[in-house]
């Protein structure tokens, strides 16, 4: 049971981190370099999941993807399955939940890149795309990695949102945090202890590995091609 929940949780965290990297990079780029006067509204929107209680977020995600919603109904028609209370629904909810944790560090490190370097790149003939990949991205690796690590860690520990939209279905939506909660509810403190400890050890190992990678990278950053 622990293994099932653990695998599920890790799968969720990895998938969400991948998705947030794909969505987060362009969003962070836009936030860092756009000069649209209403940009601050988007910034506030992106930060919303930080301040909203997870249950509120979960509730709105449920409303957005439940079988009564347009999105839910479209998905139902397409696949015959509901979106809520499924692993996919969890992924969607978690992407919203961890979005600011991915985007903010990335955007911060993009805007910290000296604009003059970007100007110099343009003057030497590089397109904005090339300027991003050859100059901006390598120089903000620390921030990008932080964003990925944070969204991963944040998703691992998710509880409120999962509770709201997951339904606690073993093998599908019973993440480790829910499992621990269940075990405590069953007064099986020994099991809860074991599960919690296992999650702690695994989280630590993953984070240590990721930070270790980052440390090496900084030292050899000047060798990055």
């Amino acid at each position, binding site marked *: 049971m622990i293994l099932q929940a653990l695998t599920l949780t890790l799968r969720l965290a990895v998938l969400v981190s991948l998705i947030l990297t794909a969505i987060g990079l362009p969003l962070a780029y836009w936030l860092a370099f756009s000069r649209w006067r209403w940009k601050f509204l988007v910034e506030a929107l992106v930060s919303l999941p930080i301040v909203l209680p997870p249950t509120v977020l979960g509730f709105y995600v449920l409303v957005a993807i439940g079988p009564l919603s347009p999105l839910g109904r479209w998905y139902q028609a397409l696949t015959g399955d509901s979106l809520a209370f499924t692993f996919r629904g969890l992924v969607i909810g978690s992407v919203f939940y961890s979005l600011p944790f991915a985007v903010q560090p990335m955007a911060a490190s993009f805007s910290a890149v000296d604009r003059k370097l970007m100007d110099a*790149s343009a003057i030497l003939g590089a397109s904005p795309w090339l300027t991003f990949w050859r100059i901006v991205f390598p120089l903000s690796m620390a921030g990008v990695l932080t964003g990925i690590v944070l969204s991963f860690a944040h998703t691992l520990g998710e509880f409120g949102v999962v509770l709201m939209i997951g339904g606690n279905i073993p093998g599908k939506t019973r993440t480790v945090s829910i499992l621990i909660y269940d075990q405590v509810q069953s007064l099986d403190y020994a099991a809860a202890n074991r599960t919690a400890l296992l999650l702690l050890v695994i989280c630590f190992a993953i984070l240590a590995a990721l930070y270790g990678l980052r440390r090496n990278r900084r030292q050899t950053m000047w060798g990055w091609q």
Partner: protein
Amino acid sequence: MGVAVSRLVPESAPELNVEIRKTLLDSTNHAANFLLDLQFIAPAGITVLFGASGSGKTTVLDCIAGLRKPDAGQITVGERALFDSKRNIDIETRHRRVGYLFQTLALFPHLTVRQNITYGLSTVDTAVRESRLLEIGGSFAIANLFERRPAEISGGERQRVALARALVTRPRVLLLDEPMSALDRVTKGQILDDLRRWNEAHAVPIVYVTHEREEVYALGNRVLVLEAGRLIADGTPHEVLSRPQKESVAQLAGFENILDCTVSSHHIDEGTMTCRVEATGIDIEVPLTRVSDGAPLRIGVRAGDILMATSQPQGLSARNVIAGTIVSLRQQDFTLIAEVECGTRFVVHLTPAAGRALELGPQKPVWLVIKTYSCHLLQ
């Protein structure tokens, strides 16, 4: 442009034609907004753009490079328009073939010197890229630095690398923004040499921005003076700086003394005018100009053009002898700077030897001697 040297310079090298009108906003102080409004032609060779900070010099370069957009005007290189507000042309920076050396150099810190220099050559085939790299490495003496990173080389070396990076792409126009500001005299000299040599080998308009007088003299055949967004002078360095017409240029050109005067009388036969220095009883004789009696006037006198005497001089050719008292004396490098109170303050430059010989000190009464032709009329 100097001695004729055999080179492959086309007769009609493309000129840079710049016309810019742009409102510059000071984000903190609305009163400081001003209008950049200028027009000039820079032929092949070095054109120096001279002015104080805040005069808009960097904005001019940014507009030429396409980093900023004028509100109106046009920028062309030969036949090719880079910007034209009337025809709605605004070529992207990366297509302008402009070389630009920033004040901060903007070398890519995570790339080696080689990678920095070849950054702009990615569309060029490998053989050509290598040959150009070696050529510029040789002429700027940086070939031994190719595998190092910018953080690992000295300031002077960084400057050369940055210059090499800008030049290796064979730009049609070269822009330099105060490129020597952080360098010592010796290094400056070396780089100016490099630049001049390159300039002789390629026929490209070069716009060199600076606020240092020495660089103006060292480099340019042509100086444009920019003040508060407008060009107020255009000519050879000597013309512009030795006989400045405007006060701002005067201060830049080194007039330590600027006097507000009123014209009291003209002496047409003698070619002079008498002016009363405001709020004092001092009269000075200055060269004659077309100004009516009673009109206000500003006179600039260089501190190095003033003689000092400890007893009232007799039989001098100079028309202006003014009595005063030394207020302070201080030595800076090899110059003795004296402040003398005469009803108005004068700054006088002397040699330390003179100071010792005359036994100068504060409170000492002295006479200042100023030739008529050392008085420059400012507008």
